[in-house]
């Protein structure tokens, strides 16, 4: 592997049948993944899903129990971390505390004996707009500055593959947004392959060309962010990537372009092309921002699904939109996001509402809704209601 020279362009990464076992548990179970050269790929998942382990396997900091890792077509499975054309931006940044910023950035260049490391390090610092603090020590920098130094230290090496291990996790929201845009711009500018690990779905969607949602050591679904959001294939993806209203029921009729599901007495039509399964018990869903609220029963429309009247149990205003929780008998709580186009809430707390959504916005899942939907409702409203009931019964006893 020619790590003495800069990578001309990003390389593709291929994981073949990767398995990683730690004493006592399996972190990754049979993972196959191909990331094309020059793309910005996000690995998204909750903590403990194996995404960081995957990253460490690629970096060479862990050894796979089984399987092969190929970077740019050559097998690097048995090579050590320092021999791989890969650099990592660590979650903790891991800037060497005993070196100045410029020494940190030039570290990799010096080890590879690349000509004129200092000038190149200064150039990289200019890219992240921190050249003026080159002589400081890492502990004198703010979190955001440290993050940018960590990024400069990695990209100055022009690795064929850049690994980002939740590097924005410690930053505040505003800085995070700014860094997301900067990262994306740098990736487009230098044309490297980025593999970004994160648990922040918004971050993954804004930055990546391709998002892979990981759960329990396996990839649940992979695709462009819009594709994943508009057409989630599993309940996990539907709930982890954004939020979803899910309904389970039997398929009662199937036509060439639509299936009809009967769930708690209501009929929900989903386009056949957007449903993974066409018979038996299926789970269908719709995104909360696609759902409309009505103060009175809407006129019957073949192109809209309507759910029986429910009651608004929670209204929360979040600036651009208002979030309603509507309790519908038999269907549980349905979430509705309404754009704040007019003034004031569309419906008040406790008012009776109908909800509807266009048939083409529905989607059908491959699996059933995940178990969390049937667990105890721990929302504040229901807890308050329970508490009130307990108090009332106590009063009646006395």
């Amino acid at each position: 592997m020619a790590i003495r020279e800069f990578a001309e362009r990003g390389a593709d990464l291929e994981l073949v049948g990767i398995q990683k076992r730690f004493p006592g548990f399996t972190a990754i179970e049979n993972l196959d993944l191909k990331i094309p050269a020059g793309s910005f790929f996000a690995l998204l998942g909750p903590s403990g899903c194996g995404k960081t382990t995957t990253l460490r396997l690629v970096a060479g900091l862990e050894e796979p129990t089984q399987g092969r890792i190929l970077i740019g077509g050559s097998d690097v499975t048995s090579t050590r971390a320092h021999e791989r054309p890969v650099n990592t931006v660590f979650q903790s940044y891991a800037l060497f505390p005993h070196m100045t910023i410029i020494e940190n950035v030039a570290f990799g260049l010096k080890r590879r004996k690349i000509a004129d490391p200092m000038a190149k390090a200064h150039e990289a610092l200019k890219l992240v707009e921190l050249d003026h603090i080159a002589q400081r020590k890492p502990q004198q920098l703010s979190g955001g500055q440290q993050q940018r130094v960590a990024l400069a230290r990695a990209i100055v090496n022009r690795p064929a593959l850049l690994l980002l291990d939740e590097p924005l996790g410690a930053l505040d929201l505003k800085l995070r947004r700014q860094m997301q845009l900067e990262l994306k711009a740098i990736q487009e500018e230098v044309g490297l392959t980025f593999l970004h690990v994160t648990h922040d779905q918004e971050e993954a969607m804004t930055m990546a060309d391709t998002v892979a949602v990981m759960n329990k050591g396996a990839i649940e679904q992979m695709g462009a962010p819009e594709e994943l959001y508009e057409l989630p294939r599993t309940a996990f993806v539907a709930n982890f990537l954004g939020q979803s209203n899910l309904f389970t029921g039997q398929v009662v009729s199937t036509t060439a372009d639509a299936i009809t599901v009967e769930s708690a007495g209501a009929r929900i039509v989903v386009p056949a092309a957007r449903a993974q399964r066409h018979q038996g018990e299926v789970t269908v869903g719709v995104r909360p921002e696609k759902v409309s609220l009505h103060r009175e029963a809407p006129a019957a429309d073949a192109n809209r699904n309507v759910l029986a009247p429910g009651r608004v149990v929670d209204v929360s205003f979040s600036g651009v939109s208002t979030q309603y929780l509507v309790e519908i008998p038999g269907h549980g709580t349905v979430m509705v996001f309404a754009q704040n186009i007019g003034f004031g809430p569309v419906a008040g707390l406790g008012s009776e509402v109908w909800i509807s959504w266009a048939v083409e916005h529905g989607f059908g899942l491959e699996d059933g809704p995940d178990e969390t939907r049937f667990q105890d409702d721990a929302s504040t409203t229901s807890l308050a209601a329970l508490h009130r009931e307990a108090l009332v019964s106590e009063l009646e006893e006395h």
Partner: protein
Amino acid sequence: MAFAAFSTAEAQPQAQRKRSPIALFLLLPGIAYLVLFFLTPLVSLILTSLQAPSEFGDIGVYDYAFNWQNYVDVVTLYWPHILRSFGYALVATIAALVISYPLAYFIGVKARRWPLLQSLMLVLVIAPFFISFLLRTLAWKQILSDESFIITSLKALSLMAPDAHFTGTPFAVIFGLTYNFIPFMTLPLYTTLERLDVRYLEAGSDLYANPFHVFRKVTIPLSMPGIVAGTLLTFIPAAGDYVNASRDFLGGPDTQMMGNVIEANFLVLLNYPAAAALSIILMAAILVLVGIYVKRSGTEDLL
């Protein structure tokens, strides 16, 4: 942030006002102790080192004077011992560092996953302290004496000349010093290595540094506080040691160190000014050497 800035701005003058009387009161016992047991003997030692022999007195009777000639005398007479002390102490410190570093690294970094092993090994490092170091050094004298199993075997195998000795050689003294000070080296090294963040090592190997370079460029600089503390704790007492080099223990007539000379002057020759002058020289030399060392190793911002 705003809250923090506000509160510190307000707390500052209050803290200063509170500090003065109570802090001084609490420091009083410590200051009294230092004046009584450190400053007084030091002043007495300096005065003694400048004394001149009493004109009509017996051997061992001296008068207060300003006889700085004492210093010139002891240096001309004992310069080989002075050099030997620092030479032996330096070699013993390096030997102890070379032996202790891997040991401390293993206990502090590699054994992190097995806390029980970690504690067991630490206990083993400290265990020698349960026996007086005089006894342990005497035991080594027995083990390494000419009649001992080890030495007779080495001679039988022709690995040592038939008329060679081990005890009484510089090598034996350095061996004794190294052995006795290894725990003082290992413990400070362990405390810094135990806190070593292995993520820095991973970052090093991610940045194309092979294990040797990671060790040299990351591990060693990050463990510098431990190295400095350990070498000081070894070098300072080793330079003044008089047990290992003594003829009664591992040394011989040609291995006498400053400590032995001071002891002889004080207790045998009754030349108190010479002994005091030697003590002052030893103390000053150590202070200067340590000062240069701490400055050069640049651990100020790591400590």
